[in-house]
């Protein structure tokens, strides 16, 4: 019996980052859901409320970090899943770069939206 079970070999930057982002996301995803569905009911959300939250520097930075961590964790997870299913060679390289581009675009667009939500620009 193996002493240590894991989906990945425990080595490398992506392996570590997947776990660091996981620990962060466990807290912030739960917070995000609680705040925008239970503390503030989703049906009652208005732009004024969103603007008030996003205009706070701490909240804005938390949401941007949430976006970056979520995108990395998700896109890296998809890549790992596909490699685990046997993706290799040229296809692996193409998929890797597609995911990097898609993830980067998502982060850029997400930050644009978060900035627009502040109503400052």
């Amino acid at each position, binding site marked *: 019996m193996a002493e*240590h079970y894991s989906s990945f070999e425990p080595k490398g930057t992506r392996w570590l980052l997947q776990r660091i982002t996981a620990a962060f996301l466990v807290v912030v995803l739960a917070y995000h859901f609680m705040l925008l*569905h239970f503390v503030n009911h989703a049906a009652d959300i208005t732009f004024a409320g969103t603007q008030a939250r996003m205009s706070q520097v701490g909240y804005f930075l938390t949401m941007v970090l949430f976006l970056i961590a979520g995108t990395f964790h998700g896109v890296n997870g*998809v890549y790992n899943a596909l490699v685990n299913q046997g993706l290799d060679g040229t296809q692996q390289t193409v998929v890797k770069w597609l995911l990097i581009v898609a993830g980067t675009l998502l982060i850029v667009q997400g930050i644009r*939206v978060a900035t627009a939500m502040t109503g400052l620009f």
Partner: protein
Amino acid sequence: MSQSYDRGLIEDFGRWQEFSAGMWAWIFHKFTGWVLIGYLFTHVAVLSTATVDGATYTATLQGLESLLVVRFLEVGLLAVAAFHILNGIRLLFVDLGVGLEAQDKAFYAALIATAAITVASIPTFLLGAF
């Protein structure tokens, strides 16, 4: 000393009756992960089209919330997120080598807690939907 665990070929669903708790946890974690990353892209896309001006933003969100199907999809999203979070905590402990002998029980606990959280959230999600 660490060693990766060969789960066999996951596409061979004919083996499903042989799947252990850890295998089901792996499948559910992967499925909920696909849903969550798909949702993240959708979420940013919807907010991008809504954040044109304040009135459009509020009208888009309240318009979506007026649809009963959206309320049920939100319950589903919570179930998916809750499982991924709870099983994710289990995986972090597994990676740390803590509580390995109870990893199957931790999976069952994650399932039960997900079900409890989901059921308890239904009144909140459906508030004002009818």
